[in-house]
């Protein structure tokens, strides 16, 4: 048995439960949460390595063999995302230590972060559609709590919208599951794929697949992103960074999984729909990123643009494009976390949120300015940084398959990302400083260190992409050839 693949979910879950009881003991909470993050990272790297040796791993809970029981399946794609999630969370926790404040730490901040991570990792690992729903709900309930934590007026109002829209999308999810169970009679993803391949993906199944498209688009912010900028700019910096880095990625993962493994027979309908939605998302995100003067809003709209860009890879649906999308997913988790942290730090230092109210920050905080510069280049896809490789592969895939509309919009959106961030950079970092030496807020080391760690990671991924390549190409190969996944799940049972 491969009990190890349940660990990325179990470790955060147990840590969260233990931390609930250590509510008033801030020091212990911090030490335990860092130790647990390190353990999760280590375990996920071990599993990732093991997959390269032994192929896709699976764990049947309670010994119920698939397709009858619930199971966890770890392939390269899911484990890459689990590993990135764990690393990003660990670094964000370091930022939380110096920024989140006693009040939050006593109000179960750490437990809920870990419950969130448990939900996220569970969603990446599960091989059962209903279990995916449950893991989504674990993640969402924790995110509801985190978004309202602190209880400021704007948070409460934004979270009403956020919760309601997510309840609605969960309802769609249940509907989709009910219809699928009614027609196909199974919920195991590999088994679903086999049965749909047998009976053919008729109009009924295509309609069901579109229900799933709506559900996951709502979670990922693909076209249906209207809730995203408001709710991502309301909570404290760390929580916003956690959301921006992780939550939309789970929706994207689910889209990739469902539309490469289960509903891949009618690409003219489903993948065209995804392509059109991706184009509209990139356009809408670009407009939003240019329209606002509030840093948090600009940063949130940058999340939207990235969603469109990554799902362009799914719409193109060739192995090269999948590789690009996976590289870009990993890159985006890291750099979006960094971007949210930098934006939050700027707001913390100046007390202002509008870009025209800041000026000359690079004179007061040179390190922060240079970090922002690196982030900007990385998001724009300048070569030695991590955003480059993903863009190249998605571009190559688009040219090979002749999807020129996607190609043009995807690369134009890159220019808008660059422009929207340059606007922040020029307004806030350049120019005369307007901060007196007297009320110069010192930049805490605990805030700078995580940003530097993220910046090192984006440079390291950009330079050391060769090291990542075998994992990513294996992941893309599995996405392209669903029979590998099916084989691993349904083959003669160990």
């Amino acid at each position, binding site marked *: 048995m491969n009990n190890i693949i349940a660990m990325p979910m179990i470790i955060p879950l147990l840590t969260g439960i233990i931390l609930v009881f250590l509510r008033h003991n801030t020091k212990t909470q911090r030490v335990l949460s860092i130790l647990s993050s390190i353990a999760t990272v280590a375990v996920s790297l071990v599993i990732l390595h093991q997959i390269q040796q032994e192929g896709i791993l699976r764990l049947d809970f309670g010994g119920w063999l698939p397709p009858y029981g619930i199971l966890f399946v770890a392939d390269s794609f899911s484990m890459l995302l689990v590993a990135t999630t764990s690393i990003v969370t660990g670094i964000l926790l370091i930022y939380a230590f110096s920024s989140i404040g006693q009040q939050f730490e006593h109000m179960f901040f750490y437990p809920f972060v870990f419950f969130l991570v448990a939900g996220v990792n569970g969603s990446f690992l599960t091989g059962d559609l*209903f279990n995916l*729903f*449950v893991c989504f*709900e674990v993640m969402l*309930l924790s995110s*509801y*709590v985190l978004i*309202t934590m602190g*209880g*400021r*007026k*704007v948070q*409460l*109002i934004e*979270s*009403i919208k956020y*919760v*309601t829209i997510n*309840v*609605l999308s*969960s*309802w769609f999810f*249940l*509907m989709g*599951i*009910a*219809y699928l*169970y*009614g027609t196909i009679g199974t*919920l195991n993803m590999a088994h679903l794929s086999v049965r749909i391949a047998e009976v053919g993906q008729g109009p009924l199944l295509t309609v069901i697949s579109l229900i799933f498209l709506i559900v996951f688009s709502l979670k990922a912010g693909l076209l249906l992103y209207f809730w995203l900028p408001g709710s991502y700019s309301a909570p404290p910096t760390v929580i916003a960074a956690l959301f921006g880095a992780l939550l939309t990625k789970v929706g994207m993962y689910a889209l990739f999984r469902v539309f490469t493994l289960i509903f891949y027979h009618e690409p003219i309908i489903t993948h065209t729909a995804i392509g059109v939605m991706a184009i509209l998302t990139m356009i809408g995100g670009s407009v939003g990123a240019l329209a606002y003067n509030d840093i948090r809003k600009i940063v949130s709209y940058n999340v939207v643009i990235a969603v469109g860009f990554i799902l362009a890879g799914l719409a193109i649906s060739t192995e090269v494009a999948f590789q690009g999308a996976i590289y870009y997913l990993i890159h985006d988790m890291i750099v979006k976390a960094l971007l949210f942290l930098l934006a939050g730090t700027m707001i913390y230092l100046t007390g202002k*949120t509008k870009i025209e109210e800041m000026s000359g920050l690079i004179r007061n905080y040179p390190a922060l300015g240079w970090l922002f510069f690196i982030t900007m280049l990385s998001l724009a896809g300048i070569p030695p940084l991590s955003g480059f490789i993903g863009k190249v592969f998605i571009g190559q895939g688009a040219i090979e398959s002749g999807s020129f509309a996607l190609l043009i919009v995807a690369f134009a959106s890159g220019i808008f990302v660059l422009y929207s961030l340059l606007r922040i950079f020029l307004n806030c970092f350049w120019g005369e400083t307007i901060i007196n030496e007297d009320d110069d807020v010192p930049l805490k080391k605990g805030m700078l260190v995580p940003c530097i760690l993220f910046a090192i990671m984006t440079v390291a991924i950009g330079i050391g992409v060769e090291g990542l390549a075998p994992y990513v190409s294996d992941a893309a190969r599995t996405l392209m050839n669903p029979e590998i996944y099916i084989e691993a799940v349904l083959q003669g049972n160990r």
Partner: protein
Amino acid sequence: METLMTILVGFLVMIAVYLLLSRNLIRVILGTAVLSHAAHLLLMTMGGLKKGSAPLLGEDAESYTDALPQALILTAIVISFAVTAFLLVLAYRTYKKTGTDNLQELRGFEDE
């Protein structure tokens, strides 16, 4: 029986949508509760409604009830219970903080 249940589900969804579109926060929450019950009923219906047999499939069993939809619904009910409880607390806190439960008046707020 299945047709009747499906119509009932549609009816529940209709009520839920009406409630969701109203301006009163409590009505919206009740709407989400009704909506999730509609989904549960749909799950049950899609699993097939059979009368009087045990959820056991033996060698000589003539019919059996599919137990999986029940398991799914149980999980879904627990989740929707938790979410509804959370939403109610959220609505209460929002009312305390803003002095209104009218969604129209919650728009266009200024940051503190």
